């Protein structure tokens, strides 16, 4: 439960990078990018694609684990 809480806090920090630079002055070009919210959409899309790749890696890992177990049982039977 505690690990979940820590992970949740870290994700919140990740999702709101402005918290980290809260005291900073920004120039007009950055204001435009921030105001249009386009950067946030780009960030969300990239994050979703990246998380998809991570889920794929975890599923690959599960499959490889299954294969390793089958291999082990074949070895122990012989």
């Amino acid at each position, binding site marked *: 439960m505690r*690990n979940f809480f820590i992970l949740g806090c*870290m*994700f919140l920090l*990740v*999702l709101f990078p402005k918290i980290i630079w809260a005291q900073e002055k920004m120039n007009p070009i950055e204001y435009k990018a921030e105001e249009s919210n386009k950067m946030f959409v780009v*960030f969300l899309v990239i994050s979703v694609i*990246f998380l998809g790749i991570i889920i794929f890696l975890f599923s690959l*890992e599960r499959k*490889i684990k299954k294969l*390793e177990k089958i291999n082990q049982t074949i070895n122990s039977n012989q």
Partner: protein
Amino acid sequence: MSNYAIRMKQHWWKILAVILIIYSFGAGLMGAVPKMGVVRESIRNLYYHLPMWFTMMTMYTISFVNAVAYLNKGKVSSDQRAGNYAGVGVFFGMLGIFTGMTWANFTWGAPWSNDPKQVGAGLSILSYLAYLVLRKSFPDTEKAAKISAVYNIFAFAIMIPLIYVLPDVMGDSLHPGAGGNVGFSEYDKLDHRMRMVLYPAALGWILIGVWIAQLCIRYTRIKFYLEQKLID
């Protein structure tokens, strides 16, 4: 220990990698960056281009160490590690080339301008691609492992001067920090805000690289054992 705790112990570094990379996406796209002449907002690509090279270098170094270990002790596992880490290194090298070409298109006016560093990076990737082909070109696995281990050492030794020494010696590189140009570190001296994104991003991508390589190695191992059984 509960099942969940065991899983957390096994996968904590993978979760850390994901968090670091998502942090670099957010902070890289929305955080403040120093303003520079031609580069402007495209300087943000530094957070995505440079970590690819860091990861590639780490993968090649691990591959090199394993190639030396194979020549010393002759363990098959070292050869498998050397091959797979080199493969993942090539993958990240290509990502580095593509992110660099995208950046160059905006700042230098063309994706490929025969910059010494670009050419060096391309050549080093080609030399490692040749290594991957060489590994598969011998029917005798032991012979293939030995020859490719020697070639791996050669490719690693060639890569360092191609990427780091030659662009500096030639002196006409467009890359920042090479050929007498000022590096980005000069503009980040005051508050180190770029480092706060770049280093976590690099660490995250290196961990992802190690993870992918581990998956490849485990798969190669299973394949190797099954092939051995078929031969027996």
